[in-house]
């Protein structure tokens, strides 16, 4: 936590930055995009992807149309396109998360309630990570944009360039599979 070039995000009422102002755009949204990308592909790759996201956004700023959606969903769209190239890394990371969680549970004898809770939590992590890795790419993108990036349906549609109905159905299917995994199912 020693180094930063960014100022804190503007309050929610602040005007969105101009896409021609690279510094302001970065200040406002870098941390959101890094949080999202780091979850998907880890810190090192996320930095690379997010830097490239802002560069592309800046170079293609004339293509941004505020009437079709906000600046942040547009940035998530660019970021998502770049992350798509890294889908193998993402899946590997999710499988590794699941394996690590299972390894912890294997080491636990669960002699008391607290240990049992910890084992349960690790099993949940393993199930959810496995379910996420198995999701079709589009469903995983929609789910993570909703859960992690906290975008609305319309914003996800704008980010991915897909109809609103497709967002709803992809999210429904993804959540159904995660719920099933949580309940111990294997869908």
């Amino acid at each position, binding site marked *: *936590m020693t*180094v930063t070039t*960014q100022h804190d995000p503007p309050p929610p009422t602040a005007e969105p930055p101009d896409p021609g102002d*690279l510094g302001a755009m970065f200040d406002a949204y870098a941390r959101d995009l890094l949080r999202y990308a780091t979850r998907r592909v880890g810190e090192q790759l996320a930095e690379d992807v997010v830097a490239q996201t802002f560069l592309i956004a800046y170079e293609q700023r004339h293509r941004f149309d505020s009437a079709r959606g906000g600046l942040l969903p547009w940035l998530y769209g660019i970021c998502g396109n770049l992350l798509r190239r890294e889908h193998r890394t993402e899946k590997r990371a999710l499988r590794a998360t699941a394996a690590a969680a299972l390894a*912890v549970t294997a080491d636990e004898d669960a002699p008391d309630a607290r240990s049992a809770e910890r084992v349960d939590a690790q099993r949940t992590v393993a199930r959810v990570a496995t379910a996420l890795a198995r999701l079709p790419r589009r469903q995983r993108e929609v789910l993570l944009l909703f859960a*992690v990036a906290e975008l609305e349906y319309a914003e996800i549609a704008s980010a991915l360039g897909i109809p609103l109905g497709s967002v709803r159905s992809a999210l429904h299917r993804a959540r159904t599979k995660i719920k099933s995994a*949580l309940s111990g199912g294997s869908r």
Partner: protein
Amino acid sequence: MTHPDPDLRAVLDLPAAEPTDASVSRTWHLLNQRHTAARSRTPRRLSRMLVPVGAAALVAAVALSAVLLNGPGGGNGQVGAPRIAEVLASHQPLPAERGTNPKLSRTTPEAIAALDELAHTAESAATVTLAPRQLVHVKADGWAAGRSGEDPTARISYQGRELWIDPQGMIALRVLADGRDLAEGPKADPQPGRAERDDLLQNGANLRRATPEWLAQLPAGDPAALLARLRDDVDDNEKWTADYLVWDAVAQLYFNADLLLSPQLRAGLLRSFRGMDGLTSGEVVVDGWRLIAIRQTEGSSSTEILFDPLTASAVGRRDIYADSEVTLVPPDGGPRFDPVVGYHVTWTQNLVNSVDER
């Protein structure tokens, strides 16, 4: 994160760390490098570039002066900005000889001598005793570059930070940024530090998630073995060498918990660094406070850790970008830095019993 639904909550609960300030900074400088490179490929814009800056590899005495600020809340209008009147920096050239890793230069004899001297001092340094549940309070005075649009200049601004670090995993429980609590507001995490604790639970203590117990079991008396342990704890990747990653992680460890290091470990770490590649030495003097700067360089990026020669404690960090073509503009009344210094911070630490104590 505000989703109440168990399935969404479960997705959010998967281990994942929040982006650190260091990660944001690296991303910003990566973006700047690419942006500059893209602009240099556009002949029409070449005339708009400012004077290139390539002085990092030269011995340079840089006299930096500024008008005294008016103290907290005054002067340049930045809350809590410290009074810095003068910064003097000098650093030896980067040698041409390659190190054990040919991607990096050879560590210089001067850097090795400086590390030896610091290690000798460290052996007689004072120790602190950490009581159960105590936290490390870190107060950091940072100055960082920020840039808008195609502006060929980057404005330096003050960034004051206060952190309350749980030494069990070096987890920030509370962060004040320029006086504002980052744990407040609509995106506040209701369980701060939970992801980091999960990470600690899953992966155990390591260089990036140290604990006092982990620090105590390091082979402090065997510099080669200690460096090997540190290198084992960073992930190799195509982008950076292990020594760059070790140096970055060690800088973070010092920032979080320098005062928890025993004299033996403090000395052992300094001796272990002698086996790294890419180190050079220099001095930074802040208002007469002389500090030893040990710099690790990879490509055009360098990170300095600043040591107080009287205690061998790490008290600061500077990030340096040798190929930057951006001109840094000091704030009104603020310090003027060497043109290649993108970030400069010094810190102080003390032990506290809660996140409400200083």
